[in-house]
């Protein structure tokens, strides 16, 4: 019953998406037949076109857009690719099927007639075009029937339904539940949740440590991991857990500019996906560690230090200048601390204290002391 209602909503959404694609194509055809230069407006996905919405605490996309023109040597090929992918998406919607990003790459891939040139040189080219399509059509990736590869894991005190199958995240063994790319309510519904918070860690190795120690059981939480910078599926799921179940999100990331950046993306959104910040960003997310002060606080040995290189220093200064960090005393101190140390520390460095130091001492202590940055 509920399912059919959702299917109905989906159908409506598909029609909307299809209409947008057809409108774009018709515009191009009209220009062509009318002797005008065919072009498609693509909102700019660049730092220059992102706006920091202080009130909402998220990054938003500005209004700037660029015309992608056929008769421009640098744009001719991407123009063609945009049309090809537009046509592919229409096919997908008609067949009511979804494809992975890689699948889309293959769907659009063929040799341009009369040449030896392939329509797409590699998947990266195809991925970029799909993001362009998303922003120019104003349709999300899942609305285009496209998903990314799974790149996140979850365990914890929660049961959910994924495409009609009930998933008990307490019984996921050592591997955990793989967070899919599309986690919208029509795919995933939360069923039963006892967890009181979410601990998100940077990568799989750390996550495994926590899972093996049954951290989520002891502390009644959900444990997630995003393989470095978390993909959209993971961020969307975190956002839904935060928004719909009111769970606070704590992040355990490396003490380096990359870790800080991941936190910034989870919290405020990323530049390239600024148009999705509205449904991805979690301004209340907290940064639990590793902190610059931990080297001394935890009494770590010299061996865990990884020297900052020039790029790291440059990057750290850039991050310190982000508008959402600029006025934040805690973060300014944190980044100063990092630069003052002159070295980075990974979460794994805590293993030098004890194998389970991070799960049994570090995180519980910090949570108890409410010692985090936000």
């Amino acid at each position, binding site marked *: 019953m509920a399912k059919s209602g959702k299917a109905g909503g989906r159908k409506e959404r598909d029609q909307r998406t299809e209409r947008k694609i057809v409108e774009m194509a018709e515009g*191009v055809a009209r220009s062509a037949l009318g002797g005008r230069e065919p072009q498609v407006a693509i909102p700019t996905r660049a730092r220059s076109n992102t706006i920091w919405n202080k009130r909402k605490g998220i990054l938003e996309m500005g209004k700037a857009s660029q015309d992608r023109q056929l*008769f421009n040597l640098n744009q001719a090929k991407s123009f063609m690719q945009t049309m090809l992918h537009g046509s592919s998406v229409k096919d997908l919607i008609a067949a009511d099927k979804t494809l992975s990003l890689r699948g889309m790459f293959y769907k659009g891939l063929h040799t341009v007639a009369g040449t030896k040139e392939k329509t797409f040189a590699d998947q990266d080219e195809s991925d970029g075009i799909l993001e362009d399509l998303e922003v120019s059509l104003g349709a999300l990736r899942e609305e285009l029937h496209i998903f990314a590869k799974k790149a996140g894991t979850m365990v914890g005190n929660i049961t959910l339904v994924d495409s009609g199958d009930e998933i008990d995240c307490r019984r996921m063994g050592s591997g955990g539940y793989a967070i899919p790319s599309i986690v919208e309510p029509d795919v995933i519904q939360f069923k039963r949740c006892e967890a009181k918070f979410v601990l998100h860690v940077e990568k799989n190795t750390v996550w495994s440590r926590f899972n093996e120690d049954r951290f989520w059981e002891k502390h009644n939480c959900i444990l997630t991991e995003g393989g470095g910078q978390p993909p959209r599926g993971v961020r969307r799921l975190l956002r839904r857990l935060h928004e719909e179940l009111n769970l606070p999100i704590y992040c355990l990331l490396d003490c380096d500019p990359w870790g800080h950046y991941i936190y910034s993306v989870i919290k405020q959104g990323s530049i390239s996906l600024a148009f999705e910040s509205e449904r991805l960003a979690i301004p209340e997310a907290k940064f639990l560690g590793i902190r610059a002060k931990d080297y001394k606080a935890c009494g770590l040995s010299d061996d865990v230090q990884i020297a900052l290189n020039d790029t790291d220093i440059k990057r750290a200064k850039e991050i310190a200048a982000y508008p959402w960090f600029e006025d934040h005393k805690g973060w300014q101190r944190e980044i100063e601390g990092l630069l003052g140390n002159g070295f980075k520390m990974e979460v794994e460095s805590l293993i030098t204290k004890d194998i389970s130091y991070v799960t049994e001492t570090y995180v519980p202590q910090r949570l108890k002391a409410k010692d985090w940055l936000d």
Partner: protein
Amino acid sequence: MQGTEAALMEKRSQAPSKPAGKRRGSTAEEMAGRQRDISVSEFFAKNRHLLGFDNPRKALLTTVKEAVDNSLDACEEAGILPEITVIIEDLQPDRPATAKSSRYRVTVVDNGPGIVRKQVENIFGRLLYGSKFHRLKMSRGQQGIGISAAGMYGLITTGKPMVIHTKPGAKQPAHHIELAMNTKTNRAEVTLDKETGDFPPQRLRGLTAGTKALAAEKGGLLDAESYRSGTCVSIELEGRYQRGRGSVDEFLELTAIANPHGRFVFVPPSRVSADDGDAPILAKAEAGAAVAATETTESQGVTVFPRGVQELPPETREIQPHPKGIELGTLLQMLKDYEATDKGTLFNFLQERFCRVSSATAGTLCEKVGATSRRKVSDVEPPMAEKLFDAFQDAKLAPPPTDCLAPIGVRQLLAGMLKGVKAEFYAASSREAEVYRGRPFQIEAAIAFGGDLPADEPSRVIRFANRVPLLFQQSACSSFKAVIETSWRNYNLQQPRGGLPVGPLVIMIHMASVWVPFTSESKEAIADYDEIRKEMRLALMECGRKLGTYLNKRQRMQRESERRDVFERYIGEISKALHEITGTDAKRVYEALVKQAKSRTAVADQVLDEDGKVVKDEPVDQDGVVIVDRGPMAGAAPAAAPVAEAPKRKRSASPAPKGRGKGAGEGPGLF
């Protein structure tokens, strides 16, 4: 002054001044018995390399060269469009090809004015006899050594006399004369002298299959009716016929380039001595292929270099020496000569015997040396002459007149290059006349680029002095240095440091002067005067700039045509995708987009001009540039319609500079 005489005088004076060593037992009297005059001919017989007879191969070339130079000079002086036939017969076809040399008979026939009977011995039989040495007038020959030296060389190597047929006028009979030179007396001995009706000698028409074929065409080869007058010289000599650099073939190709008003026919010997693998670089049209009337053709061994322009070079005037261009010795000699013949005053001498000396200037000069204007030349003592010489150097004088020069001219240069070099772009420039050492000269340059020229080799420099190709000692030549000094990189060409530019390029430099300063008597390289080299560089830069603009433009065209390729490549895909999304007719969209692509890249279809401006349909007259479309460029769309009268040609050149050309351009097909 010029090397020949100086060398001779030195030789003569050396012998008597040799110190007598008593211990050896020779007395001054004994030695005096052995001391005697050295004849000029004898001297050169022993020093043949000075005249370009160093080896059999060069001897053959020099013989042809001297005869052709004389023919051209004679034709031009008589106002006849030159028609010159060069035939080399192999007299020892059985000698192995590897032999160092073989016996040849070189015959050069022209349609010039002919030679009056009594002058034949002097012209062909005496060294240092001629009309050109004593005057300041632009001509090919300068010293009067050439043809007689060739005859002497033939006599020395084969014992055979020189054979001359000459017909001085339509109504006058031709003479058949055989001359053997006596080197001791510097006089020719006539061994045969008879009148004949056979001119040009008809025997020559039937020599080979090629000559027979050519003779069958009207006016094709030595057609008796078209030779109202003319001269035919035959010399037998030991030589070596070989193609490639420094060969007779190259000489004639280059001569044809610098003398587009001449028609040249070359009948080479049946056999090449040995192939050194050095193929001539200048392209010849393939036999049998359809070629424009002005392109060089080769058929059955006979090469025809057709006439490129129909007017003769402007007639040149003889000028008096310029005061700043003479040396003290010359001045003394001139004073002596004047004293002997005119017995006039110093004032008159200055005015009459020099150019650019007005009566006012003459008066000032007299004053400066402390002489009244009525002082007789006979009263001018050497110290005063020396003072006069110094006064010359300080005097403010106009540069010598330049109408004594006959540059080839931009249009003719281009015609010559078009005829001889298969390229895509031609540019030429003709500088204003300048002066070195009081002698006027004028530099012209032309370049040919692209087409069939080899792309990865150093470019070829072809050098001319008074329209005569210079084939040897390239690196000693002022022109070569000028080419190297020019920064070709500015014009989009590669150029290694201190080297020739690399690319499909032929560079031509011509120096016209009343007296070309050669580095040696064999006239192979132009001496390196700053004034000359500077003019050469400027002429080259002018051509280079034109080439640079063309290359820039061509690059842009290529870019545009690549651009169009890119668009057209994707348009098919786009119209298909649009069809799939919207159902619009793919073919209609495709055609509409292709049309847009074409108009947006219209530059690719543009015809080039020199300044990178678009040439409209009407060909605008253009200074010194010709662009020939030799098939489409890589990736380029077919070029615009060629000019109708001359297939393959697109842009034509400007009219002759300064309107000095005799007839207005009525050349067949070309201009």
